C-alpha cells in the first residue's frame, strides 16, 4: 500500500531522516515510535508532501507520490491528523467534516450558481456523510457547536472525522492520544479498531506504549532519523537497540 525507499530529509546540514525504507501492507495497524526528535513527524511530512524528502521515493498504491503537493496526496487517499490540533475553529463541527469532503466533490461553481440537480444531490450526500462520521467518532451531540468550543478530546475526534471525510485508504495519526486520560485512551483504541474494520489502513505515531501495544500489529522504531527496528510488538519490546534508544546503554 505504502512504501518508502531510501528516504532522506535534510534541513541544511542537519540530517533528520536517513535512508528510511518502509513497507506497509494494506489493512494493518502500524505504529511509528521513537524518542523525541527521532524524525517521526518528519517522516509523516515527507509522505504527505508537506516537506518533500531531499532524496528517496514514496510510493502509494503504485503511484509515485514523491514531491507531490499535499492536496494531491490527500486526493489520492492519504489523510492525516496533526500533533497540534488544527481545526477550523470558527466553523461548526458539521462544517469541519463537510469541508473534509471537499476533494471528493464534483459540483463546479457553475453548478452552485444555478443549483443544478448534481449540486443538490451532492450537498445532501455531503451533509449526510458528515453527520454519519460525527456519529462514527462519537461526537454527534456537538454537530452545530463551533469547533473551538468542543472539549479537548472531542476536538481530537473531530480532527479524525475530518480526515476520514476525505475517504482515505491510509490514515496517518500523529499522536492521537496526546493529553488523553486513561479512559479516553481506551476509547480511542476502540475507535482505531473501528476505523481499521472499515477497511482503512492506520499508521500512527504514539508515545504511550499501552496504546501502541493495544492498537498496532507492527511497529517501526526511529531514532536520530534512522530506522532501528521493525516488527511485532513482542519483537520490538525485546530489541536491544530499541531498549538502548529509550533507556540508554548499560555501562
Amino acid at each position: 500500500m505504502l512504501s518508502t525507499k531510501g528516504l532522506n530529509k535534510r534541513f541544511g546540514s542537519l540530517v533528520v531522516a536517513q535512508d528510511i525504507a518502509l513497507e506497509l501492507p494494506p489493512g494493518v495497524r502500524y505504529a511509528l515510535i521513537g524518542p523525541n526528535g527521532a524524525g517521526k513527524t518528519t517522516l509523516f511530512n515527507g509522505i504527505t508532501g508537506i516537506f518533500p524528502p531531499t532524496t528517496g521515493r514514496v510510493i502509494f498504491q503504485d503511484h509515485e507520490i514523491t514531491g507531490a503537493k499535499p492536496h494531491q496526496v490527500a486526493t489520492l487517499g492519504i489523510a492525516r491528523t496533526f500533533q497540534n490540533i488544527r481545526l477550523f475553529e470558527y466553523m461548526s463541527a458539521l462544517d469541519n467534516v463537510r469541508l473534509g469532503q471537499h476533494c471528493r466533490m464534483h459540483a463546479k461553481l457553475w453548478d452552485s450558481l444555478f443549483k443544478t440537480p448534481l449540486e443538490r444531490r451532492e450537498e445532501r450526500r455531503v451533509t449526510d456523510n458528515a453527520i454519519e462520521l460525527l456519529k462514527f467518532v462519537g461526537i454527534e451531540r456537538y454537530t452545530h457547536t463551533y469547533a473551538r468550543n468542543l472539549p479537548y478530546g472531542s476536538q481530537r475526534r473531530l480532527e479524525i472525522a475530518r480526515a476520514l471525510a476525505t475517504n482515505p485508504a491510509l490514515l496517518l495519526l500523529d499522536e492521537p492520544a496526546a493529553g488523553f486520560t486513561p479512559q479516553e485512551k481506551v476509547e480511542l483504541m476502540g475507535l482505531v479498531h473501528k476505523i481499521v474494520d472499515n477497511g482503512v489502513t492506520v499508521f500512527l505515531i504514539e508515545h504511550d506504549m499501552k496504546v501502541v501495544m493495544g492498537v498496532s500489529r507492527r511497529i517501526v522504531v526511529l531514532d536520530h532519523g534512522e530506522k532501528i527496528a521493525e516488527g511485532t510488538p513482542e519483537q520490538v519490546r525485546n530489541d536491544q537497540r530499541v531498549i538502548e534508544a529509550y533507556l540508554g546503554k548499560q555501562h
Partner: protein
Amino acid sequence: MRPLEIAFWAATLLPFVVAPSYLALASQVAITALFALSLDLILGYAGIVSLGHAAYFGFGAYTAGLLSKHYFGEPLTGLVLAAIAAGLLGYVTSHVIVRFRHLALIMLTLGLGLLLAEAANSASWLTGGADGLQGVKIAPLLGFKFDLYGRTAYAYSLAMLFLLFLVARRIIHSPFGLALRGIRENATRMPAIGAPSLAHLRKVYTIAATLAGAAGALLTQTTSTVSLEVLSFARSADVLVILILGGAGRLYGGIVGAIIYLVARDQFASMNPQYWYFWVGLLLVAVVLLLPNGILGGLSALYKRAE
C-alpha cells in the same frame, strides 16, 4: 430567503415613495453597497485584506466610460464588458496577491491601487487625466432614459445589486464558499484535506474584482462621468471602512454599512458643511469601540443573548 431578508429587500424600494428627491443618493448607496459586497467576498470570507480594491472599481468605471464614448452607449452590454475587463485584471493580479498575507498583502494591494491611479492620471490622452473623461453618453436603459431625479439610476443600480447579491450568496453557500471559510480559518491546513488553497483564492479574487468592476461601471453609467476619484486611495479606504462598519463576513454587512455611512455623510455635510468629517470620524470610533464586529455583528450578538 428568510422573512427578514425579504423585508429588507422590500424596504430598499421605499426611497421611490418616501424620498423621491433622494434617489440619486440612494443610487450611490446601492453602487457602494455592491462595491463593499465584492470586498466582503475576499475580506470577510477568504481573509484577503485589501487597501487597493478601488483598482477594479475604477477599471470597470473607465472601461464602461470608454466603451460608451468610442463604441456604444447601451448600458447592459457595457456593464457586462466592464465587469469582465475588471475580472481579467483581477485574475492577472491574483497570481501575485494570493501568495501574500498580513502586512505584505496590505502593502501590495495599496501599491497596486496607487500604480493604477497614477497610470490613469498620466494617460490623459485616454482617460482625460485630472479633468475626467469627457463625452460619456449612455443610451436609455431598456427604453428608460436616465432622468435627472435618478429614478432609472436607482432602479438600475438596485436591480444589479440584488442580482449580484444573489450570485454572491450562492457562492458563499456552495462547497467553494465553505472551502473559502476554511482557508480564512487555517490556510495551511486546507491542503491536508485535499483543497488547493491558492487556486481557490485566485478564483474568489477574480470574482470579487468582477463585481467591483460592475459597481464601477454602474457609477459611470448612472452619473455619465468618470473622474480619477474612482481609482483613488480614499475610495479603497472608504469601502473598507464601510464593510467593517457594517460587519465583514455577513454578506449584508457591506450593504448596511453603505447605507449608514453614506446617509450619515450626507446628513452631516448638510448640518455642518465645514467639519462634517469630524462627525463621520466620531461615528466610526463609536462603532469600532462598542461593536467590534460591526453593526450586524453587534445585532446578531444581541439577538443571540435574547434567545
